[in-house]
């Protein structure tokens, strides 16, 4: 019953509390506005801190989203296996690393965690169409599974099938960027182009995927690997291949199995380094994670130093403000202000000051992200809302932490001493 009464009383007081808080905020804003330059200099540290939180977090986040979506685009349960001699002096004594179609077939057949494989020849080629000539375009010689394994489909014409691969015929699929650079449209499907002086019929066009880390995935020519071998016969013993695991969880199993098969086939003794490399998505992720950790710790450093500087600035200016306004405090007390009224007035002022700094920092952070996003090679940047909340929280926290001492000092001033203050 008593508790209920207290609760009702407390609730009845809320509008009053809100009103007096609003009054304090208005007083604080007036105070800040009448000392514009001083206030701005005071919150510089906070501005820097918040600007760096917003811009760095947004960019790291932007890259993160980019990497994730790129990896999803690659196909989530995909690996690339390629012949690679072990680096350094030790590799010099070993025979050149080799990978043949038999190796790939063995993996396909015996590795149970592997759904399918697709041999791939990576090279660069010159392509000609009409009067246009493009030099050094990425060429992939692969098989009909390229589409599902890489999650990379044609959206005009068709992809080559098993028949084309077996025949090793002169058919090709082009990326959108190649099309653009050749200055032609989709009508090129069915027409002929020259790839390294060989006549190829264009049978399909790949969907647009965008670029990754400056590497444009749309600037690509795909032909059957058998056709590629005819053009580049020395590649026969240096094949790479895509591996698709049964599902994402099976990737480690698939890797273990193919490693065992390849080591056995290549006669690599236990403890010796392999003569092939495996590229997995989690490697990209790991690399990216390191970058993210570095960026975050640099950010944390900048932020904590500038918050500290900003906080001390606020404390300093609030102490000055309390001294300047001693008479005002005396007057307020003489007309009935309690200590807690004065305390909350000055605390509110400190918090409003630091939050205004935080607001400016957020605006600057947005501006930096906006400007950065204008660079053509930049990833898409969105300011995450949680970083705004975090920044505002930090700045308000600094206001409270560094404002409490000056506010307390103001609150305990004796009214008589305050009114006598010159």
């Amino acid at each position, binding site marked *: 019953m008593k508790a209920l009464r207290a609760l009702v009383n407390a609730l009845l007081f809320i509008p009053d509390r809100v009103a007096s808080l609003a009054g304090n905020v208005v007083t604080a804003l007036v105070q800040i506005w009448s000392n514009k330059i001083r206030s701005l200099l005071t919150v510089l540290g906070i501005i820097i801190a918040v600007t760096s939180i917003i811009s760095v977090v947004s960019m790291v986040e932007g890259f993160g989203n980019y990497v994730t979506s790129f990896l999803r685009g690659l196909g989530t349960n995909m690996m690339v296996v390629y012949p690679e001699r072990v680096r350094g002096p030790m590799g010099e004594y070993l025979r050149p690393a080799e990978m043949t179609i038999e190796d790939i077939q063995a993996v396909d057949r015996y590795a149970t965690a592997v759904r399918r494989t697709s041999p791939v020849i990576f090279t660069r080629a010159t392509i000609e169409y009409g009067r246009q000539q493009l030099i050094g375009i990425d060429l992939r010689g692969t098989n009909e599974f390229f589409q599902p394994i890489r999650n990379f489909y044609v959206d005009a014409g068709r992809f080559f099938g098993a028949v084309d691969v077996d025949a090793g015929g002169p058919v090709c699929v082009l990326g959108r960027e190649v099309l653009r650079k050749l200055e032609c449209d989709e009508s090129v499907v069915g027409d002929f182009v020259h790839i390294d002086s060989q006549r190829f019929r264009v049978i399909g066009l790949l969907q647009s995927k965008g670029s990754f880390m400056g590497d444009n995935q749309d600037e690509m020519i795909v032909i059957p690997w058998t056709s590629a071998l005819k053009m580049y016969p020395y590649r026969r013993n240096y094949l790479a291949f895509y591996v698709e695991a049964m599902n994402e969880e099976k990737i480690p199993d698939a890797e273990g199995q193919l490693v065992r098969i390849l080591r056995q086939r290549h006669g690599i003794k236990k403890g010796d380094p392999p003569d092939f490399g495996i590229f997995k998505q989690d490697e990209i992720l790991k690399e990216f994670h390191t970058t993210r950790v570095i960026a975050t710790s640099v950010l944390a450093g900048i932020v904590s130093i500038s918050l500290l500087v900003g906080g001390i600035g606020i404390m300093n200016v609030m102490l000055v403000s309390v001294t300047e306004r001693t*008479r005002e405090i005396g007057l307020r007390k003489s007309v*009935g202000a309690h200590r807690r009224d004065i305390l909350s007035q000055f605390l509110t002022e400190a918090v409003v000051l630091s939050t205004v700094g935080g607001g400016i920092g957020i605006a600057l952070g947005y501006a930096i992200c906006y400007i950065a996003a204008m660079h053509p090679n930049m990833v898409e940047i969105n300011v995450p809302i949680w970083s705004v909340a975090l920044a505002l929280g930090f700045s308000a926290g600094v206001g409270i932490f560094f404002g409490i001492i000056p506010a307390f000092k103001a609150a305990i001033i004796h009214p008589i001493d305050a009114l006598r203050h010159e």
Partner: protein
Amino acid sequence: MTDAANNVASGFRAGRDVASEPRTGRLPSVGTDPVIELIDLYKTYRVGTELVHALRGTSLRIHENEYAAIMGASGSGKSTMLNILGCLDVPTSGIYRLRGQDVSRLSQTKLARIRGRQIGFIFQSFELLGRTTALKNVELPLAYTRTRHRRQRALEALKRVNLLDRAHHRPNQLSGGQKQRVAIARALAQQPDIILADEPTGNLDSTTGKEIMDILDSLQAEGQTIIVVTHEDEIARRCGRTIRLKDGQIVLDTGNGDGHPRRDEGGTDAIGEAATP
């Protein structure tokens, strides 16, 4: 004071009584119950190792609707006494009863509450907040006592001092006399038990000073209890009672402390001479 202003004034007083009674739950003072009672009050300041006795055994009673002037040489303890009366300070020893309640040993919180609800202070240097309007200045004490209808009450108080047309002016747009009227309105808005004024005309020329005193006179005529600290005999003469301090002690008091103000007895003319050695 014009008749119109007086009418406005009485309207304001009427509003005041209705509003104040349920708030405090106090009965209007009758008979000989003093509003203020000081018993053997001492105030001692310590400056370094030296002790300064600002008040030395002062006893005093002020009744409802009294109009008292506190006089005395500089340093005689007038402000010290007024500050204690206004609960801005506490005595070193002795008892101070305000409306029967001993307030000489109260905590800061309780003193703040009394300052907000029972005391209206008027200062020599006005003490208005420079960045806000006259109206906001008058509303200030009401905000601290969480009073309802602040704006309305503040406007009524400004009307009472004839400054309604300056409600939205800032102090730096007002003359000295107008500032002091805002300060009076601020005290009035509190609907205090007593108004304490420490040399309210000290910073004003004599004409403006008279205007201010006219307002205080009319407030007293409407039932307000007022204590004024002053150096000027002319001002003291307006008050019904003069209390003269010397070295922290009351050396002359024309009131008898029985609750009957001597406003009409015409004895005030002699005070100046009586106290002058």
